[in-house]
């Protein structure tokens, strides 16, 4: 039973080891792809199992919770793992074209797969310290990937990324220490069980806020998001896609997990803060996007802005809002990763990611235009693409909860998102190329072209499927939200029925 949980976690590491040891040959990159296919299979099996049985927990090392480390998969974890596997597969195929031999020799595939392993671990673990460890795994491999290539920009961006993330990491670690000092346990379900028994509930809130700050940096919320726009435009496209898709979402996931399972007592206080944070994150992010003229910078700021939506779902904490948060999480990973993958193709065909320097893609690269259009307008929340449903659910949750201001902010930010998506569209696609070149996809080496286009098309297809047939996903998100709001199943699965 526990192997359903373990395999998606272990596979990326195995893949990393073998891909690294064979990095000087062509085998490395194919091991990476095969490993990610296998991971997707394993994740799907986990998903099937979770759908079948509800929350499943596995005690690593055979030590019962809370003594050993527990891996847990509820609906949210399972879907996050599946999405991680999908993104990883898409990016690893894309990397076949995007990553050169030099980077492979330096261990790109190892870094990438360990990153995926760290992400999967973060989603699956039920232990707070273990979560820290996976965060670190993820963080350090993201450091490596970010600066892989070593251009000046990357190094400079890397300094910003590394410094700010290290601060959050240490805050997180201290928080864990303090929480351990209060509860004597590290298992999240067990912490959740023992926290209400504490006398000093005010202190619990203090610790909660400490975690909020630590995860806030990871999730890139206002006013802690600086590292993201400062660095995400610098690495290779495959890398920035996986960053944009997954990394901040792990922070969001951690916030959701902690603030539904563990810190669910003083919600008046914590979730009000979160609501403000959400609103400011949305606005500042989208304005940042409006201020920039480089596709990758625009998209980076949009990540920030959209994190705000997810936090908004969490902050409202109604069943519908949680549905929205979960749905948004899933939708955003697919769409944002895809957009950055496409940006890579834009750069390769049109020669730059700066809007002033490119154009004419609509005329001569219609396929790319279609592939961009779908995720871009999905991000902007146009129906019936996946982003619409995400936004719809969140706005209705806010309106149902009489949270007028946040609903208005969400809608306004949606409008500004349209603005910057059309900015990219108008400049990169509609506008004639300033140098009069006709950018064509055929300019890319045909052997690599499919490696670029296949994952993009697949992810776009996924966006369409979610958009046109949202019921499955919404129903799933509802189940996930219900589980999040009532953690008793989770706790029972982790601690045994008696707990």
């Amino acid at each position, binding site marked *: 039973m526990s*192997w359903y949980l373990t395999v998606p976690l272990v596979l990326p590491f195995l893949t990393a*080891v073998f891909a690294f040891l064979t990095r000087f040959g062509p085998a490395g990159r194919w091991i990476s792809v095969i490993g990610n296919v296998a991971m997707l299979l394993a994740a799907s099996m986990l998903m099937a199992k979770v759908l079948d049985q509800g929350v499943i927990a*596995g005690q690593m*090392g055979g030590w019962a919770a809370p003594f050993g480390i527990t891996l847990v998969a509820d609906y949210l974890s399972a879907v996050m793992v599946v999405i991680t596997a999908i993104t990883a597969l898409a990016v690893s195929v894309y990397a076949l074209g995007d990553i050169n031999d030099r980077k492979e020799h330096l261990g790109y595939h190892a870094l990438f797969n360990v990153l995926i392993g760290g992400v999967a671990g973060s989603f699956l673990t039920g232990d707070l310290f273990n979560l820290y460890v996976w965060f670190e795994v993820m963080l350090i491999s993201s450091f490596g990937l970010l600066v892989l290539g070593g251009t000046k920009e990357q190094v400079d961006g890397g300094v910003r990324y590394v410094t700010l993330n290290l601060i959050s990491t240490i805050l997180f670690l201290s928080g864990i220490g303090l929480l351990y000092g209060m509860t004597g346990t590290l298992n999240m379900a067990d912490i959740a069980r023992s926290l209400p028994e504490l006398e000093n509930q005010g202190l619990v809130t203090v610790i909660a806020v400490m975690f909020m700050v630590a995860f806030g940096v990871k999730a890139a919320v206002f006013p802690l998001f600086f590292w993201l726009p400062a660095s995400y435009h610098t690495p290779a496209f495959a890398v920035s896609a996986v960053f944009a898709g997954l990394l901040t979402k792990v922070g969001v996931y951690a916030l959701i997990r902690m603030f539904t399972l563990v810190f669910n007592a003083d919600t008046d206080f914590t979730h009000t803060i979160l609501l403000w944070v959400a609103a400011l994150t949305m606005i500042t992010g989208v304005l940042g996007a409006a201020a920039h003229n480089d596709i990758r910078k625009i998209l980076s700021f949009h990540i920030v802005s959209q994190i705000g939506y997810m936090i908004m779902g969490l902050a409202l904490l109604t069943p519908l809002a949680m549905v929205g948060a979960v749905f948004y999480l899933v939708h955003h990973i697919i769409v944002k990763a895809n957009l950055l993958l496409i940006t890579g193709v834009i750069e390769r065909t049109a020669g730059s990611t700066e809007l002033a320097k490119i154009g004419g893609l609509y005329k001569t690269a219609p396929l790319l235009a279609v592939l961009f259009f779908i995720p871009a307008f999905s991000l902007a929340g146009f129906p019936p693409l996946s982003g619409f449903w995400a936004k719809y659910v969140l706005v209705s949750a806010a309106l149902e909860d009489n949270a007028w201001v946040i609903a208005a902010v969400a809608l306004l930010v949606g409008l500004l998102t349209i603005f910057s998506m059309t900015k990219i569209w108008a400049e990169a696609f509609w506008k004639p190329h300033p140098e009069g070149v006709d950018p064509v996809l055929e300019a890319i080496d045909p052997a690599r072209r499919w490696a670029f286009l296949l994952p993009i098309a697949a992810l776009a297809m996924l966006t369409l499927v979610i958009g046109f047939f949202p019921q499955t996903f919404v129903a799933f998100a509802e189940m996930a939200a219900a589980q999040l709001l009532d953690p008793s199943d989770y706790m029972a699965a982790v601690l045994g029925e008696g707990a």
Partner: protein
Amino acid sequence: MNSIILRVGTRYLAGILVLFSLYMLIRGHNEPGGGFIGGLIGSTSFVLYAIACGTAEARAALKIMPQNIAVAGLGIALLAGIAAALFGDALFTGQWLFLNPTEDSKGLPISTVLIFDIGVYLVVFGSILSIVFAMEEEI
């Protein structure tokens, strides 16, 4: 570094350090020590070697690229964890085999836990050396 005293000292110390690190590794389960400490001590032996005789010689003495040692160590540690699957247990469940059990002692223990610790040793050893060597070569 052209210091004869350092080089001569290193010749003895490096060997002692490696042996000592292995000792710390093996006994780690019962007394202070273990893979981390062993790996750290082991790596200092080659760090010293690199300081005294230069990285080229240290690399030659090591023969294998330190990164490969580190990654292989990770693989070994992981395989030690996965081995539990063969016995139907969860990941990282220790599997123990006691050689020559007698009445009063359980015998010489061979376990996946030890293999895991060896993996840890190799990881720490290889990682530190790859950083230090690369840094040394930069200056």
